[in-house]
Structures are given as C-alpha cells and as structure tokens.
C-alpha cells in the first residue's frame, strides 16, 4: 500500500508529540507565499535601487535589515526574491509531478515491456546528479529561470515516477479494481478515475518535500551564478552578492537570505512529512 511512507522512524518524535511544529511551519509557509505574492506592494524600497553612498549600512529606521554592498535594501530584496525563489521550485515540482505521475502510472499499470523501458530510462537520470544536469543545460541555453527549472524537473522526475509506479503496482492488485472491471469499466477509466485519485495524496505529500530540495538546488545554482539573471532579486543570488560584504565584515546581507532559504526548506519539509504521515496513517 503506502509502503514508501509508512515507516519513518527518524522523525517519529516530531510528528506525534509536537503538532504545533507543523502548524508553525504551515503558518510560515503561508506567510512566505503571501509575501511573495504581495511583494511589489509590501516592500519598502525598490529592490534594485542602488545607493552606493549608503553601502553596507547596518539596520536602521528606513532599512530595518540593512543594505547590501551596492546599497540596495535587504528587506525589499528578500521580499521580491521570495517570488523567484518560490516560483522556480514550484515549476520544478509541477513539472516533475505531472510528468512523473504520467510515467509511473503508465509503467505500473501496463507493466511488461513498457514498464521496463520507462523504469530503466528514468533510472538513467539517477546516474546524473541533478545539479550537474542543470549546469549542463544552463551552459547550453544561457542563464534564466526556465532552463534550470526544466533541468531540475527532469532530475526530480524519477523520484516521483518510482513512487507512483510502486503505488500503482500495489493499488492494481486490490480487489476493488477487479470489481470495477466486472462492472464493465475499461482499464483506462479505472486507472484515471480511481487509481489516480487514490494514490494522489501520497504523491502530493512527496512533491511537497521535493519542493524544499528543489529550492535548495535552485538557490545553489543562483549562488554559482547559473540561475537567474544578475539583477533579478533571488535568495541564492543574494548570498552570492553578499560574499564581498562578508569579506568586508558586514555579513548581514548574506546571512539573511541563507536563513530565509533554510527556514523555508525546513517548513516545507515538515509540512510535507506531516501530510505524508496523515496519508500513511489514514484508514484505508
């Protein structure tokens, strides 16, 4: 059944005894998403307004989180950066989930040679580290959000398709599938109308966890200067830009985006884990 998610000893304590952590993380995720959506109206300054005279100033009334090496307001950049930093992983997760579910469903439901072909070819992707694949594609197509998102989408696809395939294999053997079959439903109808909805919660929980990983990967790419274009505010890019500030002894503008990345990833993981557990515990 949901074997992939049933046994999770490592986080057992967090899950059962402290659901406030889940609520806190859910709240944090909500706030981050809201801020990203409303960034143009919330941010106190133009995130790209350069004020070299004020470079590396500490927190003050008009710049509550200080400014970076080019005199840009860190708070405004964090808020606007939330947009690209969340949009990228969202693209990766949507792409990998849709494509991965399609591949896993086809492989698990049809079995046979189709299963072999699809499973082997997605496993081939495992052989390349996702980041390397992304770097390769970016170096071909140039920087921008689209290329790394597609590359990482492919890199995450096998995780989703494997999970989907194993779920479908288990679901396919359950007697209710046969009961539908003797009612005269075609295999495709059963697959799309019953198997897919029944496995969806597990897959979506996994995709929420993938979101965190994708965020780290994309931030890493931006940090290497391979992600978004130079002027676009982005958390990973901000860490990269903040390097010089750290060397000058003013680490705040580099540390804050790091904190934002870590907190967001942890929050998404806790939320995803909690959902996965709810699904696994669900009485089926």
């Amino acid at each position, binding site marked *: 059944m949901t074997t992939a998610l049933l046994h999770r000893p490592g986080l057992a304590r967090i899950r059962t005894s402290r659901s406030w952590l889940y609520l806190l993380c859910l709240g944090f995720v909500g706030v981050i998403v809201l801020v990203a959506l409303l960034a143009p109206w919330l941010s106190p300054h133009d995130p790209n307004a350069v004020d070299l005279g004020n470079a590396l100033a500490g927190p003050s009334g008009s710049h509550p989180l200080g400014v970076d090496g080019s005199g840009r307001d860190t708070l405004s950049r964090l808020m606007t950066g939330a947009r690209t930093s969340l949009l990228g992983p969202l693209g990766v997760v949507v792409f990998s989930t849709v494509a991965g579910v399609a591949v896993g469903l086809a492989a698990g439901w049809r079995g046979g040679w189709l299963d072999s072909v699809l499973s082997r070819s997605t496993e081939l992707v495992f052989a390349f580290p996702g980041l390397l694949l992304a770097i390769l594609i970016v170096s071909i197509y140039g920087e921008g959000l689209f290329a790394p998102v597609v590359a990482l989408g492919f890199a995450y696809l096998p995780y989703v398709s494997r999970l989907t395939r194993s779920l479908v294999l288990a679901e396919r053997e*359950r*007697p*209710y599938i*046969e*009961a*539908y*079959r*003797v*009612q*005269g*439903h*075609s295999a495709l*109808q059963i697959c799309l*109308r*019953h198997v897919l*909805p*029944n496995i969806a919660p597990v897959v979506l929980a996994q995709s929420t966890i993938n979101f965190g990983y994708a965020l780290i990967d994309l931030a890493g790419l931006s940090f290497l200067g391979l992600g978004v274009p130079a002027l676009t505010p982005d958390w990973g890019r901000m860490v990269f830009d903040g390097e010089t500030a750290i060397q000058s002894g003013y680490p705040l503008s580099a540390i804050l985006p790091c904190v934002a990345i870590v907190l967001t990833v942890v929050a998404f993981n806790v939320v995803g884990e909690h959902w996965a557990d709810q699904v696994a515990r669900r*009485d*089926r």
Partner: protein
Amino acid sequence: MNEGPMREGPMSEGPMNPVLDIRGLRLHLPKTARPVLDGVDLTVAERETVALVGESGSGKTLTSRSVLRLLPPGATTEGVVDVQGESVLTMDPARLRRLRTHTAAMVFQDPRAAINPLRRIGDFLTESLRLNADLPAADADRRAGELLEAVGLSGRALRQYPGQLSGGMLQRVMIAAALMGDPVLILADEPTTALDVTTQAEVVALLGDLRERFGTGLLFVTHDLGLAAAISDRVYVMYAGRIAETGPAEALFNRPRHPYTAALLASTPRLDAPPGRLAAIDGRPPSLQEELTGCPFAPRCAFATQVCTEEMPPPLPVRGEPNRLVACHHSDRLADQLAGRTVHE
C-alpha cells in the same frame, strides 16, 4: 431472448433456456503440468440457482471468473462459455464490456476489499451505468436508491462511505451493484465467507428473494455444503478442475454417487454428531505439477481399483436418475454401500 445452441446428450433433460452454458472448458496456466480446468460442463438456466462446490484449488472460482473472462495472465482456454448465447471467450473488448455492464454481474467474496474505500456508495453503484450506459445521473441515482431498498438498506447509504457500513451491509451494496445493470446472470463467488453466520443467513435469503423478483440466474460458488444445499436447485461438485458429480441438490446430498461427494458430506462438521475428531479426507488434492492419467480422486478414494488410476471416468448418467451425472467408475458400488450404511444409522 437469444436462443442458445441446444445440446443433445445426457444433459438434454436439463434447463431449456440456459443463460450460462459452459461446454468442455479447459484452462491452461503457464508452468503447470495439467489444465487447471479440464473439460468443465455447466449450465445455469433463467431463474435457476446453481451451486458450484469444491475445496480450495478445485477450480470453482476460476470457472466462475471465466464467465466474465476475468482470467489470470497467461491463461489459455479451450471450449465454449456462452452467456445468453454469446461466446464470452472470443468476443471483442467492446462487447465484453457491454456483457459485464448489462448481462452478467459478480458478487465478490470480501465486500470491504471489493469496494473503492474512498468513494461514496452512490458513486460506486451508479458509475458503471453513468459511464458505460450513458444513463443520466438522476436516473442512475434513482435506480441505485430503489435497489438499496430492495436489498434492505436505506437510501441514506448512497451518501455514505464504505467505512461507515458493516460487512453485511457492504455485501448488500455489492449485491445491489450487481443488480444495477439488470443482469440475467449473477456470479456469486463465496459471497458469505467474509461474513458472520447470522449475516450469512440474511445475505443468502436476500439472494434467493432477489432471484425470484428479478428473474436472474445465480451461480453460487461455495465450499459450504450446507449453504449449497439450502440455496440451490442444482449442484456441481468440482474436484481438481473437473466436475465430479452434478444433479438436483436434494438428490445429490441425500444420495451422493461420487465417493468424493460422499467423503465431503461425511467430513462436514455436525452439531448433533458425537464429539471427537472431525472426519477428514486423507491425502491431498493433486498438485498442478502432476500429470493426471486416471481419476484425480483415485489416490484418496476407498473404492479405487486399477481402472481408476488408468482411465479417466467420463461423466455418465446415474442409474435410475437421468438428470444426474457422475464421473466415477464405481458409483454403483458406492450406492450399494451407502444404502447399506443408512440402515445402520
């Protein structure tokens, strides 16, 4: 009504209008030395209840599933399975789906496993007709409500989830689902095994009522001889993929003519029997890896002689009872012995 091809021979006294007619069905599975089903002949007439009895692995479930062409992967078949005169084993997929939607339905052993746990009962009942018969949702809902009443549930169950109903109620839902397409034939594969005894009785009574009311033929697969005797008009006893004996229920259970039937009846637990060990049939059914030359029951049979291990007994009419068939070389000896024993009791 389609006129099924009529068959001459020993069974010509049987039902005139078979909704199900299985002739010489053989079913091979990969990696087995002998066919899992070996020349099964079986008919079910309109409004008739037929029980198919046998122990685990005798092929009774496969027989009932082959009626809907629900075969295990890799299975190859010979012979004919006609439902209302249409050959199931050779029809194209579209026809097969129509057959499954409208003509023949199946009630499964474990209703809790056979109903999608995440869908409402109403969804489960109406989906087939809405999708495959293009019945408007309102009509399908109305029919589902009527059938739920007919099986003794309130229409409220339409909006409930399977987890909210008991096993017995779910089996009623299963039966209602089977009736949705107004089938001429219902295949019930051990429909009461997963239920407790009082619920069993209710479900069996319900099946009997519905057969009267809706005029469906019923093939009742079971290993419970008492149940088979109570519910059925005719009984087929299966052993190792072959029909050992068939005939009207009462005659068959009162005067078994196959040693296997006799042994099965003797091993049925009885409340009024003296305490002690239950009678059992020694040995075990032949494995699928063994080739069979003679009668499959010969190694366990008290009457077996050399001819039994060498020659497969054909199904022949019982002496004096032309509507019964038995596949045994020594059914007359058994008859004499049983006649003698009943005097003792």
